[in-house]
């Protein structure tokens, strides 16, 4: 299975560089063909070409949309270096032109970078310059027909790229609007193409085109190629062979082709449902990891200490806001900010947790219902505090580049990197927490106090301090979870409430006082919800999950993994 990495900035720049390098020899060739007069000095030729290119770009800047389409069509046939840069720039909305009157007329640039640090590339001269701001420059506008045209044009260039990934993208682009020109181009490429994936893509594209043929034999062969292909366009096109018109007559006259088409559809649907299932599984794991992350801090405060901490959701929220603030503090290092935010959120939420424990919870040990109410009061105060400090509006935490994008397997199955990383992150957090609880002296004392407070005190454990630290640990972990969740959802004052009920459900379902229970409980609830979701809808799936847990608790009060032995008596 081939993996196309999308949206990697590095690949982008390499492509640009490669295109640039590749077009030099071709340009020389074009010059030879275009300028048959012998004895013309090379510099002169270069100059004429440059002038013509510059003139066309200048016209492009202010032309009407139909004229722009014409210009693009002309440009793509010329082999000048920088044409691809210019066209791709126009497509991405990165092509700007200078408004001021200059002696050499309007200049056009491809702009990249961000505010305060722009790079301007002149496609004609291939020279770059740095600028702080874009004053005096205006974006060249595009519209939908023009962009469609541009995509085709850029694809023609990319079809000759060195990287198979770029070539596949180009084929996919051409497939969107197959015409005889594109087919010619693809046929040509097929002869020289060596990469298997690209070859297959081109064959599919050609087969798609062959379906339009009037020869039934050609259509049959094309269907054989297309059978089991996962592309959406293929599916829709083959599906259309089976359609009937208004009077009930099939659109496809040949019965053999129709039969073949229905076989192909069956096979496609089979493969699609398989990948669809894989996707659902991944969604389930991802949702499960969110549930576990949200609940794992509670597994400490509620599970181990038995404190009903209704402010748990707000500790998650504080972690998420910490991640937002860290990003505000280091706006130029978004990629690093998220890594800084993790320990920062642990500290902030942990500290708030210790304050809550010392200030309120410790007076209420042994009165769980009162603890519930008091911590709920704290959660209200924290929510309103965030509203006062930050505003009631949601805040957006930027996903760093290295976490954005898709891990794409095919048209039907793709995984977003951020969900994948959060899944991994959850396992890391879980492993660390498990180590702290089972391999450090703090963990030992925490478990000792939760099992038998009096005995632990008799052995010299300062139970007060351990209570505060345990609560701080659970709260800190909630904060860390908040950092991860801030990448998935908006950060707002109400986000804590969204997680609190789920968190309690996971801990209760998994079995109080058991980290493994929380992990397995959360993951299975996540998987279960996502497996049910396609059949009943998201809200109904959630309701069913709640009802399931309510019923489950009737049957097994102590959850999936009940505590055994003496420590069970405490709960």
């Amino acid at each position, binding site marked *: 299975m081939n993996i196309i990495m999308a949206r990697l900035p590095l690949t982008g720049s390499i492509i640009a560089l490669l295109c640039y390098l590749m077009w030099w020899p071709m340009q020389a060739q074009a010059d030879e063909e275009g300028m048959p007069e012998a004895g013309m000095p090379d510099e002169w030729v270069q100059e004429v070409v440059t002038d013509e290119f510059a003139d066309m770009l200048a016209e492009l800047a202010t032309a009407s949309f139909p004229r722009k389409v014409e210009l693009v069509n002309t440009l793509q046939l010329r082999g000048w270096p920088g044409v691809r840069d210019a066209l791709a720039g126009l497509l991405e909305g990165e092509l700007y032109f200078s408004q001021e009157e200059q002696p050499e007329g309007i200049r056009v640039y491809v702009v990249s970078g961000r505010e305060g640090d722009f790079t301007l590339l002149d496609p004609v001269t291939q020279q770059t310059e740095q600028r702080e701001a874009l004053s005096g420059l205006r974006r060249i506008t595009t519209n939908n027909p023009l962009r469609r045209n541009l995509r085709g044009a850029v694809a023609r260039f990319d079809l000759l790229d060195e990287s198979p990934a770029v070539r596949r993208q180009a084929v996919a682009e051409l497939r969107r609007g197959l015409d005889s020109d594109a087919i010619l181009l693809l046929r040509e490429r097929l002869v020289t193409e060596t990469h298997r994936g690209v070859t297959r893509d081109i064959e599919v594209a050609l087969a798609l085109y062959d379906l339009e043929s009037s020869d039934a034999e050609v259509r049959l062969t094309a269907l054989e190629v297309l059978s089991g292909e996962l592309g959406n366009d293929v599916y829709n096109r083959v599906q259309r062979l089976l359609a009937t018109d208004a009077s009930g007559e099939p659109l496809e006259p040949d019965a053999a082709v129709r039969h073949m088409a229905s076989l192909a559809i069956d096979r496609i649907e089979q493969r699609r449902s398989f990948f669809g299932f894989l996707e659902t599984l991944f969604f389930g794991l991802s949702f499960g990891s969110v549930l576990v992350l949200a609940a794992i801090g509670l597994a400490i405060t509620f599970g181990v200490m038995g404190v009903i901490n209704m402010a748990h959701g707000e500790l998650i929220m504080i972690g998420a806001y910490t991640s937002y603030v860290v990003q505000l503090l280091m706006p130029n290092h978004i990629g690093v900010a998220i890594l800084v935010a993790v320990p920062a959120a642990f500290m902030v939420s942990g500290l708030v947790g210790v304050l809550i424990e010392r200030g309120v919870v410790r007076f209420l040990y042994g009165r769980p219902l009162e603890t519930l109410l008091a911590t709920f*009061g704290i959660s209200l105060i924290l929510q309103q505090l965030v509203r006062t400090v930050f505003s009631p509006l949601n805040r957006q935490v930027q996903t760093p580049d290295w976490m954005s994008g898709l891990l794409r397997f095919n048209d039907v199955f793709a995984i977003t990197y951020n969900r994948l990383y959060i899944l991994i992150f959850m396992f890391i957090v879980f492993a660390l927490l498990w180590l702290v609880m089972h391999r450090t002296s703090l963990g030992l004392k925490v478990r000792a106090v939760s099992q038998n407070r009096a005995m632990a005190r008799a052995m010299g454990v300062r139970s007060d301090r351990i209570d505060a630290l345990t609560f701080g640990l659970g709260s800190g972990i909630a904060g860390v979870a908040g950092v991860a969740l801030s990448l998935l959802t908006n950060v707002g004052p109400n986000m804590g409430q969204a997680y609190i009920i789920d968190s309690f459900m996971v801990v209760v379902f998994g079995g109080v006082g058991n980290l493994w229970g929380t992990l397995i409980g959360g993951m299975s609830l996540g998987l279960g919800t996502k497996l049910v979701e396609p059949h009943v809808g998201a809200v109904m799936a959630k309701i069913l999950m709640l009802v399931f847990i309510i019923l489950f608790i009737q*049957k097994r009060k102590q959850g999936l993994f009940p505590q055994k032995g003496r420590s069970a008596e405490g709960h």
Partner: protein
Amino acid sequence: MSDRSLVSRLMQHDLGSRIFIGVLLLVGLGMPLAHLLLPESSFLHPSTYTLSLVGKYMTYALLAISIDLIWGYCGILSLGHTAFFALGGYAMGMYLMRQIGTRGVYGDPVLPDFMVFLSWESLPWYWQGMDMFWFAMLMVLLVPGLLALVFGWLAFRSRVAGVYFSIITQALTFALMLAFFRNEMGFGGNNGLTDFKDILGYDLQATGTRIGLFMVTALALGLGYLACRWIVGSRFGRVVTAIRDGEGRARFIGYRVEHYKLWLFVFSGVLAGIAGALYVPQVGIINPGEFAPLNAIEAVVWVVVGGRGTLYGAVLGAVLVNYMKTYFTVAWPEAWLYALGTLFVVVTLFLPRGVVGLLEKLRRQKA
């Protein structure tokens, strides 16, 4: 517990009850009379707004009593009592919806507006009969009662208690809220039921109807209070209190603990449903927001603030907290959640017996 303290406690309870009933009579009869007889310029003339506000407080007080009955006397903390309240409200709302008839925006004689909007063909089965007042009122009692019966039977039979019970009741009301938000449920989705016109043929906006509703609410609150007082004073009530103080012991003595808990829970649920049904015509709307777990916890706080296990404390708490809420949301909306949050913390830490407990303490110190 010695005889003397038991007797003295009963005496105190009687005093509280007497004050409560007195005040209720005064408010229930006095306010409508003052509204009708006194000129509008008079200081003592309550406006229609005040009337419906106090009416709303009284439905909250009834909800608070229903919570206090199970929490204060049986130690069952339900964080999902708004579920019963809202279900009662929806039953009433459905009746009021059917009374709109052709006066809706779409003018359909049978289907409520939102159903026409969703292009439903016919009335779903559970809307049948809701145009009859007696049937709707039966549903106000039956639906919350049945839910409490099924849920309580499941929970108490398997001895889910304490915090676990609180958490699953919260999950219950949360699940119901999500369900009622769905348009497919046929309860108006997000917008709920509103735009009511009249009840039993009387215009809901008319002063006479408002006064009628007000007095019915006062009557319901008084009867509900007396019923609860009677229950907790009866043999049944004493077993319930015993269960609160030592469930295992009560069970070993031979009482079927889960039966006592279940019937008390069902009665409490029905009471909350009645409160909801009275709430809806006075407020003019019912939507899924009423199921919100936050509301349920807020209602529990009324009881804590007033003082649990006294019934009249619950009423006092409901009125106090809601008056505060009305005041803050008008005068200083940002501060309301701070105030409520601080109230939660302060009351649980320093006033475990609520305002009533504080008053008693002061009285004893004086004596």
